[in-house]
């Protein structure tokens, strides 16, 4: 029941906001998002006391087709729900001193998106997952279309069609699996059983079909070309949701819907995806090095990080999966942080072209300091959350594929190159006529950044509570595979 509430609260919040008008929309939105976060923490508490049945909810939906409205939560879902419910208030708060026209509609759409994302993280029915997966696309489509920057029509169209194209393969795979279930059901366990009974080739194909959908959404090379332009066109809250939370739907999907469904296929063909992921890491890191615009740099850096997560998932061992879970959370937080930094700079300087900036550290050192911590987390320095994930990922991938892990490790060098280069260009050196008038940070901006920085350091120094959330679920999952 609680799980259902977690989906309903944002949905209702969305509808409330549609009617409030834009005057106090942001405050109302913040309160509503905090309520949702509170419920998520409550769910976490229940999960810890291992009364997981109460987090499960199931009613028949389309019985003739074996579709039920089945929700449930284990540690893996929990962490993802935490990610989306934690980031939502942060994203809303970060938008506080920016005036969006009809902001209540913006927030409403964001809540509807959150509802769909929480749905996809908790759906235990293949059809239901698919519905949530597709529904989540609609609000972000409108968010970018209505509040986006230059070229938004063209970009959103490409984004929408591209992801829809990928989803189609997932739908086909789901139907194929459905036809192979003994009871004709979309229930997750039935689908698992059906998937595992398939031949190796079939499993490989199913894996490929799912992967296509998820690889586009993450995105990784070579399915990423919609992403940089979409990130650039999207308004900041939209791109935070897109890069921070929505991309994790894909990696979550791999863990929930691919690994246990076609374990033999993963065993046999997983190395192909690991290789592709590693190529993606290096490819995106290299391109990030020469980016001139900070927002593009964040976009490519994101592709590199998602590649590592994807490689870790297909390495399918305890370290790599735990690493991918932590990294999903960290990447979500850090991405929101980086986009917020971008927003702070762009709002003041009206440009995010790095060569036009410089010397900001001398003008606003607190901002520079906090930005630098986010940078450090992105280059995976120990005692930041970025390190925990990347270390476990590399350690885990190494046990499955030494060569791939060693190449993936190059990202710690390349990451340092592009991140420090960017930081230096924007923050260090002498000020110029533009940056010498860099206005001080406002209180709300300082608070938002502080929260992000604290999360980065606390998670980096003491990651155990986070690791504990998913530990047993990952163990169960791995047991099911072997």
């Amino acid at each position, binding site marked *: 029941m609680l799980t259902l509430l977690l989906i309903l609260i944002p949905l209702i919040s969305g509808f409330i906001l549609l009617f409030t008008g834009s005057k106090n929309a942001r405050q109302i939105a913040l309160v509503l998002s905090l309520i949702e976060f509170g419920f998520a923490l409550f769910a976490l508490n229940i999960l810890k006391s291992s009364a997981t049945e109460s987090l499960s909810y199931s009613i028949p939906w389309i019985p003739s087709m074996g579709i039920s409205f089945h929700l449930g939560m284990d540690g893996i879902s929990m962490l993802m729900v935490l990610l989306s419910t934690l980031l939502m208030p942060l994203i809303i708060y970060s938008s506080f001193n920016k005036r969006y026209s009809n902001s209540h509609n913006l927030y409403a759409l964001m809540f509807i998106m959150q509802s769909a994302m929480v749905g996809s993280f908790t759906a235990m029915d293949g059809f239901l997952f698919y519905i949530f997966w597709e529904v989540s696309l609609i609000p972000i489509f409108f968010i970018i279309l209505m509040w986006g920057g230059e070229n938004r029509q063209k970009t959103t169209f490409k984004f929408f069609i591209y992801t829809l194209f990928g989803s189609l393969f997932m739908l086909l795979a789901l139907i194929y699996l459905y036809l192979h279930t003994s009871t004709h059901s979309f229930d997750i366990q039935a689908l698992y059983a059906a998937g595992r009974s398939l031949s190796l080739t079939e499993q490989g194909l199913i894996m490929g079909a799912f992967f296509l959908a998820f690889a586009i959404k993450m995105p990784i090379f070579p399915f990423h070309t919609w992403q940089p332009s979409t990130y650039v066109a999207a308004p900041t809250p939209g791109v935070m949701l897109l890069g921070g939370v929505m991309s994790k739907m894909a990696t979550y999907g791999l863990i929930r819907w691919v690994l246990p469904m076609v374990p033999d296929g993963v065993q046999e063909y997983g190395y192909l995806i690991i290789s592709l992921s590693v190529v993606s890491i290096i490819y995106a890191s290299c391109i990030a090095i020469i980016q001139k615009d900070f927002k593009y740099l964040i976009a490519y850096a994101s592709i590199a990080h998602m590649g590592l997560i994807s490689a870790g998932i297909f390495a399918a061992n305890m370290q790599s999966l735990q*690493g991918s879970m932590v990294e999903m959370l960290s990447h979500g937080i850090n991405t929101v942080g980086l986009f917020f930094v971008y927003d702070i700079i762009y709002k003041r300087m009206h440009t995010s072209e790095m060569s036009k900036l410089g010397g900001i550290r001398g003008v606003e050192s607190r901002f520079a300091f906090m930005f630098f911590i986010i940078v450090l987390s992105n280059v995976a320095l120990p005692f930041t959350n970025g390190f925990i994930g990347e270390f476990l990922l590399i350690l885990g991938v190494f046990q499955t594929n030494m060569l791939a892990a060693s190449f993936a490790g190059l990202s710690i060098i390349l990451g340092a190159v592009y991140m420090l280069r960017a930081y230096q260009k924007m923050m260090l050196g002498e000020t110029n006529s533009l940056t010498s008038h860099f206005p001080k940070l406002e209180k709300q901006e300082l608070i938002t950044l502080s929260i992000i920085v604290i999360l980065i350091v606390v998670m980096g120094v003491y990651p155990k509570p986070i690791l504990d959330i998913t530990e047993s679920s990952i163990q169960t999952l791995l047991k099911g595979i072997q």
Partner: protein
Amino acid sequence: MEQLVKLIPLFPLISFAIIALMNRRLSKPQAAIIACLGVLLSFIDSAVIFQSQLQSFHPVEVKVFDWIIAGNFNASFSFLVDPLSSIFLMVITGVGFLIHLFSVGYMKDDDGMRRFFAYLNLFIFFMLVLVLGNNFLVMFIGWEGVGFCSFMLIGFWYKDNKNNDAAKKAFVMNRIGDLGFLIAMCLIFFNFGSLNYSTLFSPGFLADSSVSTETLTLITFCLFVGAMGKSAQIPLYTWLPDAMAGPTPVSALIHAATMVTAGIYMVARTNIMFSLTPDTMTLVVIIGIATALLGAVIGLFQNDIKKVLAYSTVSQLGLMFVALGVGAYTAAVFHVVTHAFFKALLFLGSGSVIHAMSGEQDIRHMGGLKKKLPITYLTFLIGTLAISGIPPLAGFFSKDQILSEAFAHNKILFALGLLVSLMTAFYMFRLFFLTFHGSFRGTQDQEHHLHESPLNMTLPLIVLAICAVFAGFVGVPHVIGEGLGIHNLFESYLAPVLGSSSSHIEASIEWMLMGLTTALIVAVILYARHLFVSKNSVPESDLQMQAGFKKIAYNKFFVDEFYNKVFTQPLDKLSLFLEKGVDVPLVDGLVRGIGKLTQSLASITRKIQTGNTGYYAIVFVFAILLLFIFFI
């Protein structure tokens, strides 16, 4: 006891936190006091620990908290105190405190003084974590942490992009080494299932395991790659000379006394593994001696006071690796300790000189500072004598131990080591004479401004000078010690961790080597005196420099230019190619192509939909006809 261990890194961390959080609310002297106090308390604490380890060998393991646990991987944040870490603790906090004290005077006019002390404290914290760690992962925290602090402090004056470039270079080059470290950790966990020293280095564990020598060699090789980065060895050494862009106390603390010796600590800590892999050991020797030679040769021709010292550090670190490579771990650690004293002394001395010269670093513009800076002069002389290896100063004992171990291992190695020592004596005295003797060659303005540094800067110099004189006596070699009834305390203290040296050469030969080395060094010093004092010669200016070996060496063999051509530029080109040659035209081109294809298909099929009823009727009839034909 356990609480005491936990407190060691906690003190500087607290100082860091206070200064970082209070920032402008603290006055500069307050910040300085807090910073110095943090390190001083840590030093006292370390001394207590050191003392307790002195009485008997009893390693103490302290678990602070669980850090990363995933399945069978378990790395807690825990500390290990044994003789090896206690010695490093003493050096880090002791020399660290003196350098903090020196910085109070050196940085007092700098706007960023609070920031400076905050970073310095944070550095001490990470350095302590590095040597205290009880598993590889905790060492890695310190390892990366000191790299980060080094980055912040090299680029301390961030308005000048030259400093920022140097900082970035240091970080990235270190990261290349760190990847080696990371892969080594993966290999160790993969093969042994643990990263804890207590498991890995428990007696017989490695030898009994079924892991092949090839794998072990790969592990030690990867570890050594990490050490190459941090301890500035060929090919990853070029960042260290550039790192001199940071304030001079930073060069003394991080880039001479402590951080750069982390690589030596790491090899010493994992000595059991290294001893099992002779191939890696050979590589360590080769890299070490090559770096020692290269650093010394470049040092001969440098004119920047800090650059000379930087290349000297590179060279001395190379000698330490030679010691490690021949299995003389104690000798290497001994040299780390004595080197920390005299190199910190020399760097701080150069800081005092630069301070007096209003920022001038070129020794061609100095000279005759002897009278104006008497304390700096005297302490600098002691440092120079110590690094040259004149008995009975500290440098003599540690360098002698390395050379005799090298001799026992391989005569050519000894000869090369001797050559390094001779060049060291030469370039150091060249530096010394050009700076302090002769007549002043700077501007009148500079001459007018010349002054000895205040007491809080000269006091650290004096203390370090005393250490540079006497520290050697803790490691008196057996041949000398036997007659005088002095025991080699250093060796017996470390023996439980590092073992004692296996190679012994005959006493008569050892005496002879000692005599020969010392005589040659004295000769070199006299030659330097002849050149730079009697003949008063001064290195020519950059413009006059003739082509040839001298110019090539002065330009550091163009290694930076080479790296730039072979690594940096191609990486940029590759990146550009990937974006403009692959991403846009091919990957996205395909996507756009599919889009276009759909559109054109649509425009063809659209033509069928004419809206003409008659046309539809005809198509309808034909279609039915076709179906009939098909089914009959």
